């Protein structure tokens, strides 16, 4: 069977919620970052699917995807720099150990 819009949207929605679930449950910072990347990739899939099936004449979706990929890389770079610095001061990248700021 040729996959259609519904199948793609289902996959992207599933990816989105897997990402959200991972972000909320995982305690390792790198894994949390990976979960955010899952969310961003589900968005990319959404854009491509909508562009191909619903609005084939308009290139907005494709452009958006390219920019999202680029920005995700920039965000990951800054986030990993921050995580490295956190590791230097806390000797761990578990969010549970970063607990000085509360309430």
């Amino acid at each position, binding site marked *: 069977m040729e996959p259609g819009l519904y199948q793609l949207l289902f996959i992207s929605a599933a990816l*989105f919620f897997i990402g959200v679930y991972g972000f909320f449950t995982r305690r390792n*910072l790198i894994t949390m970052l990976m979960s955010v990347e899952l969310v961003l990739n589900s968005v990319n899939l959404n854009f491509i699917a909508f562009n191909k099936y619903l609005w084939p004449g308009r290139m907005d979706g494709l452009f*958006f995807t390219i920019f999202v990929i680029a920005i995700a890389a920039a965000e990951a770079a800054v986030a990993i720099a921050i995580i490295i610095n956190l590791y230097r001061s806390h000797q761990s990248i578990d969010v549970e150990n970063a607990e000085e700021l509360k309430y």
Partner: protein
Amino acid sequence: MLNDFLILMKPELTVTVILFLLLFIKIGKGMKNETLLPLIQVLLLLNFLLGFFFNKQGVLFEGLYTSTSMIVFQKNILNLGVYLISLLCADWLRKTPHLPEFFMLMLSALLGMFFMISSGNLLMFYLSLELATIPVAAMANFDLEKKISSEAAMKMILSSAFSSGILLFGISLLYGATGTISFAELPAQLDGSPLQIMAFVFLFTAFAFKLSIVPFHLWTADVYEGSPIAVTSFLSVISKGSIAFIFISTLYKVFQPMEAIWYNMIVVLAIATMVIGNLFALRQQNIKRFLAFSSIAQVGFILVAISSNSPAGLSAVVYFVLIYVFSNLAAFGVASVISEKTGRENIDEYKGLYKTNPFLTWVLALALFSLAGVPPTAGFFGKLFLLTAGATKADYWFVTVAALNMIISLYYYLRITRAMFMDKNDQPIEKLRPDPSARLALLICTAGIILTGLLSWVYDYIVKLN
């Protein structure tokens, strides 16, 4: 064509020029902080003054970039805030080993905010929003050796990455439902179908994260407490202000057809934001954390005006943000001077401050009065216009709740004032001599707090721009 480009994008171009100048200074011979900081302050002052000349309205790049006199005025407010921060935190800035990088990050965030306010397209909006948040997360980590600073930066980058993921999901659904991402074409396509409502809820959530509306406010207090004060004041004034501007213009221009939906959302969230922000502010001991919760409560009042969906709402918000720049920066400025010289950030340690530092005490007291909305200060007029704009919808119970919240907030603002003026302290903070530039900035803020309210043409001018 080129003339249009140069004049319309003048605020962005001046910021970029300063940015590159700092980059060249950094990669070239480098300069001592003592000489570099005054240079940066003068450049930022020039940048602020230049914002008042050669302004034009127009649209560039087929609607990607728009500029109106209102947008130029909003950019001037942000420029003023950045200039004041560079003066207020002079003590801290002089000591930091990476001064050019700090201002490069700050100015690129400012550049992102400028593009964000001017954006006429969801793609442009997303890109500039990221440009406005990612550098701020790096700035939050600027006290490299402090544990809380890196924790704050971690919380900031994770919550902003997550919220931009939500924003993007919303945008993608909106694109699927309407087939366009341009602000000009969107309103005609919005018919309130379930998919569009869901997309709008996602977008709204992302905005709520960035504006720290309850229940998406949990990162705010931690980030504010952990970051250096220069970054905290940037976040609470400049970042908040710019997001409020784009939020209000998106709601009024793009999502105008869905007003029936977002009005209810805003009413509920405004009440939650005011009440929870106030209740948490009551029990804070750290001054930065306290100001964080007070800024959450102020966002609630901004939402009251936004709910009006009228030009009066927009001008009230812009006027309030202008006052907020002065009063919040004055409060943060005093906190910055005290924290930098003595390392004390607890409200209990401010007891008896009046005996030793009358000038700082008066400035902080005025700023707190203005934040609370006590009459002679400008904050009163700001709040008055916010609530009047909110009352145009004739939901009087909603405005009453807001007014009651002002009374609660009065209690905790006055608590600090009482501690400073009346309480006794065995080891008061010793006599401090603020840096001359910090003193100048505090005077500017004080003048702003008093004059913005008393000079009626300021508000008239903003209304006329609209």
